[in-house]
């Protein structure tokens, strides 16, 4: 008879034998897989959450900062061309394609006059305060994304008529003890009354407004001689900031455009990278440790399985299995456990990201390759973990395995 050929084990048979080996001990497989499940879930969830969180931070940064332009007179040596910006400049700016909102803002020099909410002096407490007084054009409120606690903001009519109305920043309102505007409360600048028509809740730009008393530009011009706005605040559409930054000075002061300076946002990409790197390094470390624990679990259980199945190994060798077939079966079993852990872990990790994002009203962000790569990572961990036990199984002499297994 010719010498026998190398024994063959078709892939389908190998997979079937490995599957049968795993299904024989479902409870143990489930417990073993748990380690990888936790590791992969932690890794997927942390990577996803770090991306979600940094996107949240950066998204917020992007949304406000990347659409923010401030135009103000340029300083030339010691002189500043203070009267370059025109009143009603916002009308010119709003005609530019890409401008969402625009307005002008100025500090009003009131000559040290104090503000009070009652016209009498209270000897027991402070009732008169030095507050920053500002003048805003009607469009400014939208451009700084102002939100009101109560009341309204002045419109073009108030400015045109130079009405004595003001809006208080929340800090100023607190100091002046003004909490509602339905009774049209008045505050006094020196002895002149101004009706409070609104109280701000927040602004996303020009935070100095929060502690200021803000009057219409027309009022400031008439009563305090405001010559020109100090700055123009523009909100652009996303992506239009560079274009508007070039066009705004020309629109505001066609003949003196060079006397204006434009403050456009910095590139947020560096910030995004920095935040994400910090978060990722920590989270990947945590996920890696979890995976290491999972890998040790698989290695341990596979080794125990090999030692328990010595008789089976001997039988398979007697039936014609080569050493590599024995090794392959244990490797497939451990890889399958790892892959199963990876699939379940990736699913749980994704659900965790969605759940946390839903609870925090964030937008869940996850690189699509992460849940796809997680089962492969699990399988790789299973493969590496199963290598030593598989080598031990393959090295067993059939005689010894049969004897020890009976």
């Amino acid at each position, binding site marked *: 008879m010719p010498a026998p050929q190398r024994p063959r084990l078709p892939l389908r048979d190998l997979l079937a034998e490995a599957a049968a080996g795993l299904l024989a001990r479902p409870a143990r497989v489930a417990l073993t897989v748990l380690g990888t499940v936790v590791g992969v879930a932690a890794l997927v969830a942390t990577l996803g959450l770090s991306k979600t969180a940094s996107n949240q931070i950066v998204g917020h940064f992007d949304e406000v900062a990347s659409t923010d332009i401030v135009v103000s007179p340029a300083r030339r040596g010691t002189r500043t061309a203070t009267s370059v910006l025109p009143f009603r400049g916002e009308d010119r700016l709003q005609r530019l394609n890409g401008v969402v909102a625009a307005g002008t803002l100025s500090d009003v020099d009131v000559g040290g006059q104090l503000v009070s909410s009652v016209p009498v002096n209270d000897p027991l407490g402070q009732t008169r305060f030095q507050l920053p007084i500002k003048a805003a054009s009607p469009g400014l409120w939208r451009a700084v994304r102002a939100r009101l606690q109560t009341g309204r903001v002045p419109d073009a009519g108030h400015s045109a008529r130079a009405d004595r109305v003001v809006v208080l920043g929340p800090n100023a309102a607190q100091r002046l003890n003004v909490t509602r505007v339905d009774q049209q409360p008045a505050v006094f600048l020196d002895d002149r009354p101004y009706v409070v028509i609104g109280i701000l809740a927040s602004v996303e730009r020009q935070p100095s407004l929060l502690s200021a008393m803000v009057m219409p530009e027309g009022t400031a011009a008439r009563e305090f001689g405001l010559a020109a706005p100090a700055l123009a605040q523009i909100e652009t559409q996303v992506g239009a900031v560079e274009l508007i930054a070039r066009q705004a000075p020309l629109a505001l002061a066609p003949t003196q455009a060079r006397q204006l300076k434009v403050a456009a946002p910095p590139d947020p990409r560096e910030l995004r990278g920095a935040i994400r790197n910090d978060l990722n390094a920590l989270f990947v470390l945590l996920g890696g440790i979890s995976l290491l624990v999972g890998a040790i679990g698989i290695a341990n259980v596979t080794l125990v399985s090999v030692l328990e199945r010595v008789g*089976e190994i001997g039988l398979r060798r007697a039936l*014609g299995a080569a050493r590599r077939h024995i090794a392959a079966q244990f490797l497939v079993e451990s890889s399958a456990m790892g892959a199963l852990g990876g699939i379940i872990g990736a699913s749980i990790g994704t659900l965790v990201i969605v759940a946390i994002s839903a609870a925090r009203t964030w937008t869940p962000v996850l690189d699509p390759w992460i849940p796809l790569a997680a089962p492969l990572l699990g399988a790789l961990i299973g493969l590496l973990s199963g290598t030593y036990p598989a080598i031990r199984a393959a090295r067993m002499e059939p005689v010894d395995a*049969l004897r020890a297994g009976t």
Partner: protein
Amino acid sequence: MDRDHPHRRRDRGLALLPRSPVVALHGVSRTYGADPPVQALRGVELVVERGDAIAIVGPSGSGKSTLLNIVGCLDRPTGGRCEIDGNDVSQLSEDELSALRGRLLGFVFQTFNLLAHRTVIENVMLSEVYRGEPREGRRERALAALERVGVADRADFLPVKLSGGEQQRVAIARALTGSPSLLLCDEPTGNLDSANTAAVLELFEGLVADGMTMLLITHDDAVAARMPRRTSIIDGRLREHG
């Protein structure tokens, strides 16, 4: 040598072909360890022709299991020459030995060695897995083997649901699948009661009558007496009976 036994040469007329014996051992020895060395086999000479059915009987520690392991290619001799179906075992690689075991040999063990979590028929089908034969028809072939040993009705049971005698029949069916050249039985009745022992021996007699080549080791003279050819082994040396 009992060359005139009536069961010899019944294997489908192959006696006329110039074929080598199934087993040919020439001066085979096996020594374990070195300090001091233990000689389990000493200069064993044994030829098993096609259709032979030999019982090797010996007490515990006589070397009969070592002999079976060497004939079964589970172990290699330290001296002499061992040929299985014309293949010099010493010339074969590990892989080729595995292939030889899978294709030419069938094993029956004292403890049945059935996989507890696989059904009876899956245990029988396992013997074809490492031969690389197609999966098509595997179940039918396994069922035919189970029918041959009389436990086809237990095909879908787990081994634990079967009696010892039935489990050994399943193990014999597994060994017979794929028509091996040689059936090697290691104390096949060692774990069975007298009734099951009788049933298994009856099955063996039927296989021998069909021309199966068998090598059976046992410590039980009564079991050995049921085989057409008997050899005893003591201290690693064979002595053939008439």
